[in-house]
């Protein structure tokens, strides 16, 4: 089967890599995820005095000293790309035969960089940007320039893995990881490439990033015990838990995968998106963009809502997201919404932000492979306004042919992906 809708190539997955706060690699992550383990813990990376939220799903087992979020993001991206390429057995070392699409948190000069520049300025009392500029102009801080360019993470990954062409770094906030996959799917469907490396990574657990979300009242403050804080779809849900992680996919045209005898791990059957013009952080109350986004993805896959057997939701555990996602799901699936299993990985790994769409795509592919649904943990107080089968607290087996994964982000971003176990 060479082609799907409109004669375009069918896009399959031949490699997967993942890191979350649960651990590194597919085996470890899947075992812990289906055991209902939480990776959320008390923050030890920086002082938590004065913070309302003192927990996160940070990836502390990948050491970065001195800490730099962009550096951690790059290291995790490197690790998951290695895992995915190894599984796909594609190309040769340092020579990946296709483009790179990277979902990455916006890069910025971080406090440790600013501290180094301030110290280097020699200012002995008040420190202002004039002093920092004097230091930066000294020529002693070239490394800060390269590290803090937006292009730097993708450039370093492209160099290491030998991807082809100009690497693209995409941000659609918390939907970025899904957008990176969508860009890869589209490139293969256009016939520009036979394969694409799609990576999402986020190492944003630093004081300022946490405070930014805290000031928007987006984070759970249920700090004790940390493992119980993320409560998607529960009545007492009180926000998401910031987390880190990365995931990578090797996407390939079906023909290319078959021709080289690669094992097909799933099909990226459909992508949908729709932007919301209602508000910077909230969805339109009628759910129009979420509904449209989900429908677009299912239509793009050549399926109907009745074909979807499982939903991996955005499911952040904020009061707003889960309410609106329920509205979207119930509008698209109607009466069936109550009976389609829908379980939030974020109940265990927290919200991996820019990486979430990619991380949850890998988990959805593992769900299809193992025919087993990971649970939504911490589901103790059901919300009667959200009558869904959230696979409460305990994993279970199920027959899953087609699955939907949702990603929504600040700025009205909505992306949905449909994955299938086997080519149609």
């Amino acid at each position, binding site marked *: 089967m060479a*082609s799907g809708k409109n004669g375009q190539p069918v896009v399959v997955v031949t490699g997967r890599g993942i890191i979350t706060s649960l651990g590194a690699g597919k085996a470890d992550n899947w075992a812990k995820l289906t055991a209902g383990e939480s990776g959320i813990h008390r923050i030890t990376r920086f002082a938590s005095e004065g913070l309302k939220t003192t927990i996160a799903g940070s990836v502390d087992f990948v050491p970065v000293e001195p800490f730099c979020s962009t550096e951690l993001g790059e290291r995790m991206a490197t690790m998951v790309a290695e895992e995915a390429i190894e599984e796909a057995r594609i190309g040769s070392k340092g020579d990946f035969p296709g483009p790179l699409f990277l979902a990455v948190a916006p890069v910025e000069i971080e406090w440790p960089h600013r*501290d180094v520049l301030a110290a280097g300025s020699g200012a002995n009392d008040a420190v*202002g940007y004039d002093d920092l500029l004097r230091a930066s102009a000294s020529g002693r801080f070239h490394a800060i320039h390269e590290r803090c360019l937006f292009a730097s993470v993708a450039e370093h990954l492209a160099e290491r893995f030998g991807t082809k062409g*100009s690497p693209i770094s995409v941000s659609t906030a918390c939907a*970025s990881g899904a957008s990176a996959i969508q860009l890869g799917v589209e490139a293969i469907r256009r*016939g520009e490439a036979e394969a694409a490396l799609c990576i999402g990574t986020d190492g944003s657990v630093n004081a300022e990033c946490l*405070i930014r979300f805290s000031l928007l009242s987006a984070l759970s403050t249920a700090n004790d015990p940390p493992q119980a804080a993320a409560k998607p779809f529960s009545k007492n849900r009180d926000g998401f838990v910031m987390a880190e992680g990365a995931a990578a996919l090797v996407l390939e045209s079906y023909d290319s995968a078959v021709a080289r005898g690669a094992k097909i791990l799933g099909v990226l059957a459909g992508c949908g998106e729709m932007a919301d013009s209602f508000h910077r952080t909230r969805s339109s109350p009628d759910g129009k963009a979420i509904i449209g986004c989900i429908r677009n993805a299912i239509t793009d896959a050549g399926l109907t809502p009745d074909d979807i057997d499982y939903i991996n939701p955005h499911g952040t555990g904020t009061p707003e997201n889960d309410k609106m996602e329920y509205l979207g799901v119930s509008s698209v699936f109607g009466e069936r919404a109550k009976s389609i299993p829908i379980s939030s990985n974020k109940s265990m790994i927290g919200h991996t932000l820019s990486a979430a769409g990619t991380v949850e795509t890998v988990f959805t592919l593992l769900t299809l492979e193992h025919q087993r649904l990971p649970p939504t943990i911490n589901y103790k107080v059901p919300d009667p306004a959200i009558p869904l089968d959230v696979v409460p607290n305990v994993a279970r087996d199920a027959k899953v042919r087609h699955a939907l994964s949702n990603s929504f982000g600040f700025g009205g971003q909505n992306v949905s992906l449909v994955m299938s176990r086997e080519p149609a």
Partner: protein
Amino acid sequence: MADAPREAWITGIGIVSCLGEGADAHWQGLAERRIKVDAETFAPYLVHPLAPLDLDKQIPKKGDQRQMEPWQRIGTYAAGLALADAGVKGNAELLARMDMIVAAGGGERDVAVDAAVLTNKPKAANPEAFLNERLMSDLRPTLFLAQLSNLLAGNISIVHGVTGSSRTFMGEEAAGVDAVRIALARIAAGQSELALVGGSHNGEREDLLLLYDAGGHMLRGDFRPVWERAKGMVLGSLGAFLVLEARGHAEARNAKPLARLSGVLSERSSRTAGAIPAALARMWQRLVPPVSAGIAVISGATGAQPATGEERAWLKTLPDVPVRATSSILGHGFEPQFAMNIALAALALGREKLFPAVDSSGVEREYEGPLERVAVTAVGHWRGEGMALIEAVT
């Protein structure tokens, strides 16, 4: 397999810079070689400051204006100009299926908060706790939304109603090239009919000077046009958006083409010596018809070295082709520079002439001949090479 690539037209442009807003202000400013440089505000650094905008004209709600930092206002304003120019502004049916790709950096820091923290943190008993305390109490909650890269696109959705899709590419100059490249590729392949693509940049920022001068890339002292500098960039504040449209879609609604966007390529060269000229030569060969009379180059030369020197070396291989580097007048704006130069190419093609040279070093020469096509180059100050071919629709 896929059908033959579909033709894409530029049916609207929206541009703002130190020259003002819109096509006429830019054409006039370029014709007069009007160089506006502020050497005082960020001395010893220079900047091409944004001409004052009447924000209400494109961002009618004060509440929306307040939610944005300048880089977002510049971009949202320019996007509105582009939509109006294409005749789609306010057309809910078209905007609901219009695709959007924005090339963006990040938003402004609150430099007063940064300075206060840097001054007092070393003296605090617990510096980390002090940082938490100050940020928790001094950061405006909505500042984050003004800093997030994808919130320029978000604001365009909110203010102008573009909701078909929304993607933001990051990565300085290369993001600007790839945004246009992907928007065009989607139209050519039938994945998109109508797209808004571009970006914005506020160059009047100490936090950006800090980043780029850490790399040794900023011009200090006296102003010179870009080809006349030994090295160094001068930042500009730019907003530039293009409306790209499948030819059939434009014809069906009687939209007039400003120009055809015939091709966009990007490369990631190793930046070893000679890699940039080789990349530019490859892209030129793939994009530009072999016998091309009436062609000019509009260059995105930044002033950074070795990038600009290598581009200059490549341009010497095209002795008959007139060259214009717009950063001499507009300043360098990173993400939106490529879209801006494509817009200026479309303007020049529409007026069937090239604007005057701003250079005494020999790269640019006056040209009064016919103009049928323009190659726009982008050689990123650190990484990324790109080229577009824009042609007159006859």
